[in-house]
């Protein structure tokens, strides 16, 4: 037998079931917690990022803030008549970009850029009978916008690609609240008393509450008319190849154009910061889990080795070397850790399914109108594997080393 250490170790594993079960349970609980907790949170955050990234451009180019617009008499009158106090929002309006084609040409060579789409986007109102709701109106060139934002996938009724000058696409929540469907007509009002009566040609559902309730799409031309922009736009949306390069690409575009450039990472900074904070907390929790599992493994091994002292002595009297004796116990720990990992992974999956069931029964979450897909985090599954592997080695190595160092005479004589 070439590897008698493995033979002895596996026999110890199967013969000393009580110890084997204690070690396996200790590690598998640790593994399942290490996988389960981050998987829930990362599923939530990942879903939020996916939805945010797919429903908005990775990068937007805008012009600096216009601080003079608030003095516009028509605008103030509009709000005053409706007893609304939205002066502050007026102040945050961006200046218009007059020659967007020129800007697109300036940055078109950048390798990371996949698609670009000009847009107008301002706050306005949707009016349907007596119902009047504040909304974010986005004027787009559909064939370009759909290259930048994955909006076509979110269309649940109708279409957006052939969005005409008298058409509008609205979110599912807004459609429900206004009680409108495809073919119905609604009035869109801009801040300068310009209104348009548009036909609903599409309804989308992104799963993000803010989008589905407050965002509407009209054609670029229509938007320019509603906001009296002439041929100007107030932004260019950009899709890039590697979304996590967004900050760097934005910086580069800013250097070239001198305009304000924001990346999705900046706009979703809170979510990304939340993920970073979460990772820090989870690292600490993982440390505690590993520490407690390692302690139980070490104590079980100390007991196991104490009970095997005479056998260790006799093995050494027969010529077993220190390294072999040590290997017997480390192999036991490693083989149990592999078994425990498989059990822990399965248990994490079960916990995730159970949790998904709870969330699904609630129907929606705080930020999202759709339940995210709960997936095992591959990153933490890999981490858990290394955790179980190295914890078992580290936790068993000290008692195993002591076993190897046992004097055979003392061990045999007890």
């Amino acid at each position: 037998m070439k590897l008698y250490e493995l033979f002895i170790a596996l026999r110890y594993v199967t013969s000393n079931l009580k110890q084997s079960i204690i070690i396996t349970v200790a590690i598998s609980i640790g593994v399942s917690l290490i996988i389960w907790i981050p998987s829930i949170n990362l599923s939530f955050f990942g879903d939020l990022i996916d939805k945010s990234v797919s429903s908005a451009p990775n990068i937007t180019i805008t012009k600096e803030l216009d601080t003079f617009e608030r003095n516009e008499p028509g605008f103030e009158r509009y709000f005053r008549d409706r007893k609304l106090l939205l002066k502050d929002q007026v102040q945050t309006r961006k200046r218009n970009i007059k020659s967007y084609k020129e800007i697109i040409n300036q940055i078109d060579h950048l390798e990371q850029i996949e698609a670009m789409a000009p847009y107008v986007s301002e706050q306005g109102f949707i009016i349907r009978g007596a119902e009047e709701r504040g909304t974010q109106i986005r004027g787009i060139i559909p064939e370009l916008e759909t290259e930048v934002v994955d909006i076509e996938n979110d269309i649940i009724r109708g279409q957006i690609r052939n969005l005409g000058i008298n058409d509008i696409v609205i979110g599912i929540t807004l459609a429900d609240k206004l009680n409108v469907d495809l073919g119905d007509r609604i009035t869109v009002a801009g801040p300068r008393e310009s209104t348009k009566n548009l036909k609903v040609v599409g309804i989308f559902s992104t799963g993000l509450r803010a989008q589905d309730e407050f965002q509407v799409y009209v054609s670029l031309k229509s938007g320019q008319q509603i906001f009296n922009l002439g041929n100007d736009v107030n932004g260019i949306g950009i899709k890039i190849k590697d979304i996590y390069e967004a900050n760097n690409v934005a910086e580069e575009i800013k250097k070239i154009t001198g305009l304000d450039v924001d990346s999705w990472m900046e706009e979703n900074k809170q979510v990304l910061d939340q993920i970073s904070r979460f990772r820090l907390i989870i690292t600490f929790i993982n440390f505690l889990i590993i520490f407690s599992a390692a302690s139980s493994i070490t104590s079980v091994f100390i007991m196991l080795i104490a009970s095997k002292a005479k056998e260790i002595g006799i093995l050494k009297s027969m010529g077993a070397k220190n390294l072999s004796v040590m290997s017997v116990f480390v192999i036991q720990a490693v083989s149990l850790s592999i078994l425990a990992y498989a059990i822990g992974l399965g248990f994490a999956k079960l916990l995730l399914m159970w949790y998904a069931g709870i969330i699904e029964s609630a129907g929606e979450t705080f930020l999202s109108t759709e339940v995210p897909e709960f997936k095992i985090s591959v990153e933490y599954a890999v981490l858990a594997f290394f955790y179980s592997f190295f914890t078992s080695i580290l936790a068993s190595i000290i008692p195993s080393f002591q076993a190897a160092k046992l004097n055979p005479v003392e061990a045999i004589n007890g």
Partner: protein
Amino acid sequence: MANISEKTLLKLENIDKIYTGAQPVHALRNINLTICRGEFLAIVGPSGSGKSTMMNVLGLLDAPTSGKLYYLGQETSRWSEKQKADFRNREIGFIFQAHLLLPEFTALENVLMPAYISRKMKKAQEDRAKEILISVGLGDKFSSKPAQLSGGQNQRVAIGRALMNNPSVVFADEPTGALDQKTSMEIYNLFRKINAEQGMTFIIVTHERELAQKADRIIEIVDGIIVRDEKQYT
């Protein structure tokens, strides 16, 4: 190099063993001894006389504090732990009062353990282990675990294990101490048979006078000193 004949299995020159501690114990004092191949000898003495220490030193389980120990003509004090382990595996068999079998393994696997350790496990080794078990009267107990065997049967398995790698010498520390008289006699006869048939050296450490009287040579130790070393003609 000491003057050692080919017949000599092991030789002790001025061996001392002192256990250090709060109260140091001088367990062996200036031991000089030569043991030849094929001898059947008993080491006797009262409890605490140093006979087990002597066995541990002779069996390379414990190192002497001073003096020289030669095995098959080679001085052992400079051997590494690994060399000693290899030598024990190849040349020495141990039998203890408590059989000290591995309870998780069958009788056959216990006998095979020294072969596993020497990593020379082949079909021939398994056949030899079976032959040994048959020769010690356990031909029908290959698959039995120690818990399923009697004290005498377990001691027979331990004997089989000691013989497995065909060692030059077998050390037996109180081998019949836990057995009844009838079983003790059977074990003794088994030792004698193996000694006669295979020429293996047997060194039996015992406080049982009756067993010692049956040996060819008796070495008596008192307070770590050899007080008697005489051949007997049985």
